């Protein structure tokens, strides 16, 4: 079976869908792998490494796309390229199927089986394929490093002969996977970390990585059965803003990761809250691409509002492209190997399997995903 890895088309996407290591393992399983020329350059993997792993380097993108039984990539494909895919082929990538209606439709027209990496269920068994987690984790780390580099002071406390430097205060909004890693990283660097999340059960998790949980009474909140946060009502959101105002004004760094799966990110930090911060402060908005948690954040840019920098890097995991690629690639590899039957030399894609039922969007010319179907009706 032929696996192909076309180069990413998005400008700031430095990651690659399969690393040489995974290529090697896939070939070991019985696949043949073709990758586009120079595919790993931005992530630190050279053509030679791919060749050495047994991959074939190809210059012709179109043939690649046409030939592939399995197409692995990071970001969603350009809509024009979908028509080049073989009917019955398996396309693995982020897909953003809630919003990219056209792409999904095109996929099903083309008869492609499309797996959306962000739709992998958040169950314990599926964790090894869960790219949202693996990438969010890195994003959490990256946000703190970016903030630490940007801010004009140090994070740890130091009692020195030249006076005591108090620890920087970091406030993390949203303590999902990324938020937790951000808390842990800031804590490691010696900052004093507070965090808030609408799901009350994460309070313990926040403390488990060394953060303090800010208690705000929002009334009834909660989470879906998949562990995602429910959207807040406007009143609740307002209460939340009130409750966070003071702590934000005292913080040196604010990191926002609040997301509601399949919906635009809540706007949590308003302009006046930014202005209340000390000049020199830094805000990192992880949700900048899905609408932004912070008023004034711009995807891909660092803006400044009254002395406070708002970092809006839109592809945070790509900052550590090498490790991010390795993890994404492992996720893809784990997904393929989980359903690969070595004897029959074929993939066993049954929609009865709960993981596949969650993440396969189109199959055999139809839109098969329940969640997406529900949304459209």
């Amino acid at each position, binding site marked *: 079976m032929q696996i192909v890895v076309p180069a990413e088309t998005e400008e700031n996407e430095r990651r690659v869908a399969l690393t040489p290591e995974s290529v090697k393992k896939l070939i070991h399983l019985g696949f043949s792998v073709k990758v586009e020329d120079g595919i790993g350059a931005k992530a630190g993997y050279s053509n030679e490494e791919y060749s050495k792993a047994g991959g074939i380097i190809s210059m012709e993108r179109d043939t690649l796309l046409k030939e592939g039984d399995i197409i692995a990539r990071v970001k969603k494909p350009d809509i024009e390229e979908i028509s080049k895919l073989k009917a019955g082929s398996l396309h693995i990538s982020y897909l953003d199927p809630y919003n990219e209606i056209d792409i999904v439709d095109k996929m099903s027209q083309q008869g492609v089986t499309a797996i959306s990496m962000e739709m992998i269920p958040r*169950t*314990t*068994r599926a*964790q*090894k394929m869960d790219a949202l*987690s*693996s990438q969010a*984790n890195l994003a*959490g780390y990256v946000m703190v490093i970016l903030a630490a580099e940007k801010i004009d002071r140090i994070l740890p406390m130091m009692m020195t002969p030249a006076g005591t430097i108090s620890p920087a205060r970091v406030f993390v909004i949203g303590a999902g*996977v990324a938020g*937790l*890693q951000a808390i*842990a990283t800031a804590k*490691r660097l010696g900052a004093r970390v507070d965090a808030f999340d609408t799901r009350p059960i994460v309070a*313990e*998790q926040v*403390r*488990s*990585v*060394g953060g303090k949980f800010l208690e705000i009474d929002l009334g009834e909140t909660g989470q879906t059965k998949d562990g995602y946060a429910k959207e807040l009502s406007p009143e609740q959101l307002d209460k939340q803003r009130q409750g966070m105002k003071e702590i934000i004004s005292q913080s040196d760094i604010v990191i926002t990761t609040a997301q509601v799966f399949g919906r635009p990110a809540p706007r949590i930090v308003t302009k006046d809250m930014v202005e209340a911060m000390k000049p020199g402060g830094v805000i990192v908005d992880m949700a900048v691409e899905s609408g932004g948690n912070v008023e004034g954040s711009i995807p891909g840019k660092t803006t400044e509002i009254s002395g406070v920098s708002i970092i809006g890097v839109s592809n945070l995991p790509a900052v550590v492209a090498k490790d991010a690629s390795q993890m994404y690639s492992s996720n893809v590899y784990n997904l393929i190997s*989980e359903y690969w039957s070595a004897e029959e030399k074929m993939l066993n894609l049954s929609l009865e399997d709960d993981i596949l039922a969650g993440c396969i969007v189109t199959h055999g010319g139809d839109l098969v995903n329940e969640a997406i179907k529900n949304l459209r009706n």
Partner: protein
Amino acid sequence: MSIELIANLSYILAAVLFIFGLKMLGHPNTARQGNALSALGMFIAVVAGLTAESIVSFEYIALGVVLGAVFGALASRLVAMTSMPEMVALFNGSGGTASLFVGWGTLYGSEINTFTAFTVVLAILIGGITCTGSIIAYAKLSESLGPLPFPSGAKQFPGQRIVNSLLLLAMVFSCIQFCIEPSSESYWLFAVLGLALVLGIMAVIPIGGADMPVVISLLNSYSGIAACAAGFAINNNILIVAGSLVGAAGIILTNIMCKAMNRSLLNVLFSGFGAAKQGKTIEGDVKPISVEDAYYILEAATNVCFVPGYGMAAAQAQHVVKELGQILEANGAEVSYAIHPVAGRMPGHMNVLLAEADVPYEQLVEMEEINPRIENVDVAIVIGANDVVNPSAREEDSPMYGMPIINVDQARTVFVLKRSMASGFAGVDNPLFFGENTRMLFGDAKESISGVIGEFG
């Protein structure tokens, strides 16, 4: 001062030396001096014993002493280092036998009241059990019993329970009969003697070879009690003091050894009566363990693997875990930390914590690395982990089926540290908790570990 007074004062001195000796024997740095002190005490007591007025001829004594000394010295010199426990069993047996004879011999002296008869019968009974029990223990340990019908493993022949109970009944009856009419010619005496010898055999036969050290320790305690009984029979202080010291200390030591081997004293004691098997066959039994008992097991372990999970993070127990790891290493154990990839609530959760506690990277092992060698792990300490060690993931009908786990259930002993029987993130019940070799250490992980550390102090 009369000779008798001097002898008695010597006994007191000997008792003091025994006390110091025993105390010092329990501490690594003083053990050898302790043994020497106790030997000195023995010397004093023996010399004092020789001054008794009623001793008129010394030939037989000399004969016995020479014979015994030669044999004892030779045996202790020649035995291979590896067969020490067997040797101890034999020595112990001879001690018991001596008490038996002393008790018996008493019958031929002055006239005997019921109380003395009682003590005599006690000396014979316990001495007899010690005698044959020790021989069987010796045989089992040195596996020289192979060709005999009794295998060296733990086995009961059919109906053993009934036979043993009958033996016991007969024994009680004979004792009573003898005490009612004590005389050196009473047949009941021989009945008691015979029954004791048989009972010693029957009691040890069903116990497995691995439990033998415990049995020897217990028989050691018995031989102390036998000496004590003999002391009552002949009205001798030092026998009573030394005997009961050894008897009591032996019980405690036996208990400690049981704990270190994760056995229950009762089970070992009554295995001949079927209790052991019973205790083991009950399925779905949760076995909680106390901090102190956990200590005894860990102290004796040579390969310990920590398996941390979210509970370690929630309890912020990483620092004490590291501390315990270091203590175990200092105690001679090999220590590792097995990290399951999904442990905790974010990727790398355990790494953050263990790095904070400064656990060296070299001691962290991945799941794939620990699983093949998990059978060699004496104790796997599961600290607030649950899903990642849930053996039900190996069963087809489990919602977690297919997820690789750390196979702690295959380690020799598993400690699970958590606060309750609650399930983990995935909400799947965990059969590990009911495992044969699992011990639950309930409570906040940090407090539990601190407790264990405290025991090591």
